């Protein structure tokens, strides 16, 4: 019986879990975090290029979701809602960082450079990957906000165009256009690595 209950629980959709969380069931929210935490951490990381603080920001995203769980209406996919909150938080964070300009270029390169498995790679491979990582971040950073969000969500989070459209608040056609334009600009900016 217990096995059946746990099996049916694993098959619960995000919306079902959110509805349970809405009634005060924290175990449902824990399950949602298990499913989406890694994605959100990486999404934040692509935005900020700050490995050390990505988890803190991701926790802040989930805290906001948790605080607003009572207002949740199952109209859209949970992940759409989650990434919408994450996007808003990331944009605010990036803007405040730009104002502060507290992170120096060296520091950013240091943070961006922690790429891949350093144990299995030689120093030259690691340096190259660090360099490419920083270049990708800088190239993405230079894109207009919507193009940047569209590319990160499509490329790194594997979100379908429909969902990206809901996160950004535009049509599917517009998302495709953002990705296309962003891609064209990235070709120019990352030419040396192609």
């Amino acid at each position, binding site marked *: 019986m217990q096995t059946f209950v746990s099996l049916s629980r694993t098959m619960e959709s995000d919306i079902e879990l959110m509805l349970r969380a809405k009634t005060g069931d924290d175990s449902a929210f824990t399950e949602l975090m298990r499913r989406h935490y890694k994605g959100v*951490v990486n999404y934040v990381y692509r935005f900020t290029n700050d490995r050390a603080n990505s988890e803190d920001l991701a926790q802040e995203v989930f*805290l906001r979701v948790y605080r607003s769980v009572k207002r949740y209406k199952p109209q859209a996919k949970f992940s759409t809602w989650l990434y919408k909150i994450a996007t808003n938080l990331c944009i605010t964070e990036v803007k405040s960082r730009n104002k502060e300009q507290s992170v120096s270029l060296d520091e950013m390169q240091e943070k961006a450079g922690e790429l891949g498995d350093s144990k299995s790679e030689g120093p030259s491979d690691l340096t190259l990957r660090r360099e*490419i*990582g920083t270049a990708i971040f800088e190239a993405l950073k230079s894109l207009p906000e919507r193009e940047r969000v569209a590319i990160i969500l499509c490329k790194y989070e594997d979100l379908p165009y429909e969902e990206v459209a809901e996160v950004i608040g535009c049509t599917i056609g517009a998302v495709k256009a953002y990705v*296309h334009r962003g891609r064209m600009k990235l*070709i120019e900016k*990352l030419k040396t*690595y192609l």
Partner: protein
Amino acid sequence: MECEKIKELILHYSEGDLNQSDKLGVEKHLKECKECNIYFEQSHKVWNLLDNWSAVEIKNDFLPRFWDRVITEDRKKGNVFDFFRNLRVNLISGGVGVIILILVVFLVNILVSHHENIVFTEEDRSDEELLIEFDRSITKETAESLEIYGPWSDEIEENKGG
């Protein structure tokens, strides 16, 4: 088709979103146009290049850390909201406290002033005697200056006696 139009269609072509005629048009153009062919290749390459920016690994303790954070924030919020919720009670009890404090200070002040030991020195005594003497001399002078209006005190004494 023009190159700009082809560049726009390349993404849709890669996604398999084009209808048959557009698809054939793009393929034909790519075979003929070197520039667009390079763009098509680069578009793929740049998309694949993005994979070189690897993901971060998450820490295993993210769940306990999250719930600890929730509890900590709840406590902080609870303290602030409790204060506002009990604002009326807090104000009344604060007012009563202040009144009691004022009364205590007042009573202590009275008691202390009553129990104060005033020590008269010899100098104080001579000063006091001097003041009494001064007062008497003034009284005497005043009485003498008033005599022109008649012996008031004697008359009263006589009336009483009569």
